[in-house]
């Protein structure tokens, strides 16, 4: 019982950190860079992607014995496009302001490689429960990455967080951070930071294990 529980938790947790779609696998970069100029946009985009990811993974997993092998990619794309159309209309009804800020990028969720990648690599081979857990993990990991970028870019580029002023009136915003180059710089900086952390922890393990081996 407990191993089964651990296993399903592992399916969920690997998307959060170890196989984070953005920071580790470098998938779905276009929306990450384009809509992460403020926290609210990043959150809306992350949740929209999460919804499409979970629903399409569930459907693909349920239909995995019905879909013929030869036309599977086309079928997945149609399933994904259907859910994206639902999100597109729903978001328009919920908050027109956010919808206009995100622009075409809501509809471009269709070609987000994470979703098709999970459908092909995981949902088409596993049952619906695992597929939902996997999709949830990946979706939350994607949202986390978007928030990491959105937070830094809004803080530096606008001096605010979620629209609330943080640094007071004397702060000169780094306008470049909310412009396109800022997206590249911040994502690059995060990747460098993670690479440095990883290198450090590897060096520590070697130092710790070194004497025993020698």
């Amino acid at each position, binding site marked *: 019982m407990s191993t089964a529980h651990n296993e399903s938790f592992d399916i969920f947790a690997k998307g959060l950190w170890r196989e984070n779609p953005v920071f580790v696998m470098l998938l779905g970069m*276009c929306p990450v860079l384009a809509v992460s100029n403020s926290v609210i946009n990043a959150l809306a985009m992350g949740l929209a992607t999460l919804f499409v990811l979970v629903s399409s993974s569930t459907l693909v997993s349920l239909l995995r014995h019905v879909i013929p092998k030869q036309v599977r990619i086309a079928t997945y794309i149609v399933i994904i496009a259907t859910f994206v159309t639902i999100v597109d209309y729903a978001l328009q009804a919920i908050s027109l302001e956010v919808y206009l800020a995100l622009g075409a990028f809501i509809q*471009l969720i269709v070609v987000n490689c994470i979703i098709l990648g999970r459908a092909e690599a995981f949902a088409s081979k596993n049952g619906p429960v695992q597929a939902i857990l996997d999709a949830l993990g990946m979706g939350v990991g994607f949202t986390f990455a978007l928030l990491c970028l959105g937070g830094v870019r809004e803080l530096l580029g606008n001096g605010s967080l979620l629209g609330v002023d943080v640094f007071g009136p004397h702060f000169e915003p780094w306008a470049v951070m909310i412009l396109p180059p800022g997206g590249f710089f911040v*994502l690059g900086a995060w990747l460098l930071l993670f690479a440095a952390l990883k290198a450090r922890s590897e060096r520590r393990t070697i130092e710790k294990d070194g004497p025993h081996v020698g």
Partner: protein
Amino acid sequence: MSDDSLSFIFLNACIINNFVLSTFLGICPFLGVSGKYETASRMGLAVMFVMLVSSMCAYVINALLLALGMEYLRLICYIAVIASAVQLVEMVLKKFSPALFRALGIFLPLITTNCAILGLALFQTFKGYNFLQCVAYALGAGSGFTLALVIMSGLREQLALHDVPGIAKGAGLTLMVAGILSLAFMGFAGLGT
């Protein structure tokens, strides 16, 4: 130059609002295929061709859907058109130029999930371009994509020869370089809309 003249639309899509560096479309191939100059330029040409075909198809389909009052099917139709356009290009190339077909290899089917293509189809619909403007827009976007890819591959070929710190090897450094390149293209901002 007025805002909707063909040459302005071309320049706007190619340089001022470069698809890769200003609107963040097609980042995946931009980071993945820009390692070598030759693959980068071939990939650019293939994308440009698919863009042209799918942009013309998307224009016709949009007119048809508007006439039938079924705009909600737009997204599904576009993605189906792009997938078939890629398939078509694949078959034509295989028949008439097997050498180029082999050289492009896996990149050709991957163009289907390149968001620059769907983005182009969606943007031209939002902007309400007519047929000729769509063609100019597709050509501009395609050459802009090729331009960004070729410049980037040149930079990365140079970078590969230099000694960089261990942690900066790989995606982190590539993104920093892309940021500087994007900063350079920001110089054109304000020329257009």
